[in-house]
């Protein structure tokens, strides 16, 4: 029996049921209900909010982005209105949107992240994603996110305060990302988001200075896609994965799914292609699945040697 067009792309990841596998990645247009509504209208299957911290945070001075032919380096510095203010925004978003909202939680300690995560759940988040891998803000990522022991401690703490599905966003900047995934799942995570941006720098040779005010930022976009595909391949045997990193076309999305992702994050492509990227990738992936005679779940992991 032919599947309805609308069913062909449905997927399940970490207990969330999605109309399609395309998830607006954290940090992209996720700071207001109005922008989350717009991403839904553009065709996203789920949206992730900007990372929310306990207190309002201004982030870094401009320049905060460097555009490169193969990607983008950003160092926004986790600007966010803080949990008190964002709760209002999230409640509004939850009452307006029909697709799942994944709320990204951050903080300077496991207790802080757990506190924010619990309040995000109370304000209507359908899932919480722990941002333990921001490459350019001290105490908000890599120090914790690159150690399996610290990840385990963090996830255990947050798990204690949320009942909704819990995802952990992983950094690729470790020798063994599988050990991070294993630790996260052991501590109670329902899924993994792989990967966060890769620590990077751009120096302007005329100015003879780094462009970013913070000097160091996170590289995203097509440059990191092969890294993301490899990471997804390595971690998808430990749990459900949202494969994120440089996806711009339906081919890129298919590659992520073949590597084992059950959903696909879209971030930097919103800059290069605009919000219509969601519907464009959806159309392309639909015809690919039809041509192959496969459903989306049948595609997941099919590119793995062990499948």
């Amino acid at each position, binding site marked *: 029996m032919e599947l309805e067009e609308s069913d062909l792309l449905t997927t399940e990841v970490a207990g969330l049921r999605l109309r399609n596998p395309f998830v607006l990645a954290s*940090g*992209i*247009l*996720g*700071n*207001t*209900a*109005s*922008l*989350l*509504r*717009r991403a839904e209208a553009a065709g996203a299957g789920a949206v992730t909010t*900007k990372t929310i911290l306990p207190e*309002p*945070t*201004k*982030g870094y*001075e*401009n*320049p*905060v*982005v*460097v*555009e*490169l*032919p193969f990607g*983008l380096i*950003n160092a*926004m510095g986790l*600007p*966010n*209105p*803080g949990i008190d*203010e964002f709760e209002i925004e999230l409640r509004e978003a939850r009452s307006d949107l029909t697709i799942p909202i994944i709320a990204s939680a951050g903080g300077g300690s496991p207790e802080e992240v757990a506190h924010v995560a619990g309040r995000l759940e109370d304000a209507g988040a359908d899932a919480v994603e722990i941002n333990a891998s921001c490459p350019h803000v001290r105490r908000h990522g890599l120090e914790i996110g690159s150690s399996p022991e610290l990840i385990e401690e963090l996830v255990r703490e947050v798990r204690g305060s949320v009942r909704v599905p819990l995802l952990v966003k992983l950094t690729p900047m470790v020798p063994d990302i599988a050990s991070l995934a294993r630790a996260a799942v052991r501590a109670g995570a329902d899924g993994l988001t792989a990967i966060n941006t890769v620590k990077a720098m751009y120096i*302007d040779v*005329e*100015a*003879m*200075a780094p*462009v970013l*005010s913070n000097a160091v930022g996170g590289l995203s976009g097509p440059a990191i896609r092969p890294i993301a595909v490899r990471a997804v391949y390595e971690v998808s045997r430990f749990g459900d994965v949202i494969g994120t990193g440089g996806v711009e076309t339906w081919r890129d999305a298919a590659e992520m799914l073949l590597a084992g992702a059950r959903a696909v994050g879209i*971030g*930097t492509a*919103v*800059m*290069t292609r*605009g919000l219509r990227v969601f519907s464009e990738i959806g159309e392309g992936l639909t015809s690919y699945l039809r041509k192959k005679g496969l459903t989306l779940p049948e595609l997941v992991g099919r590119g793995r040697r062990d499948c």
Partner: protein
Amino acid sequence: MRSSLGHRPLTIIESEPLTPRVRRISLEGELGARPGQYVMAWVPKVGEIPISVAREVEGRTWFLVARVGRVSSAIHSLDVGDRLWIRGPYGRGFTVPSRGEVALVGGGYGIAPLTHLADTIRRRGGGDVVVHLYAGFRSADEVMLEDLLADLSDELVVSTDDGSRGLRGFITEHVRYDGLDRVYTAGPEAMMVRVVSEAVRRGIEVEASLERLIRCAVGLCGACVLGPQGLLVCRDGPVFDGPTLMASDDFGRYWRDFDGRRVPVGALSR
């Protein structure tokens, strides 16, 4: 849509004070900006701000830079021969009219994008467009580019709040809407609210250029969002039409601060 990638250093060939607060900075080279578009200007080791393109003529690009903060002060102190790093142009500009009668209503250095628009109409052989240019300033010492604005328009009306030059009062009190096909405005938001609501009330097409905190400039960070539509000033704007603005609960009321919290227009920290 993006038309360039990364910063390009451009040499300053003129830096002329127009008023005690505003300098005209001319850079070597044209950017191919449409009227209403802006660039991000970076002073290495200082910072980066958005600036409207005020004119592109004879191989030069003009900006009108008001001294408001650290980065604009640094730009003011640059000398001829120094360089300014530019990325862009970005955003959606004004609809350039090909016929009819239009009014351009600007306040203060908000006159910059309107200068670019008037110049573009002229250069496209705008014989079929009648341009009424209204320019409001606080006082005589803030009036700028009067001769050029007169050259680029069929009628120039200048006003100052204190009447020290031109007509007295806010420029919005002097705009004649009868017979206009379209109105364009840029400047203080309270002024634009008056112009946009009056034009919409009269059924005249209107476009306004908005100012918000611009961080990424490429439609990713959401710092410049307008609700409830979720429009991005950096990319969907900075120019928006009247109905869009009248439907926004932020127009004339709120900005987002650096941390993303809503604050009343004009009450911005830093």
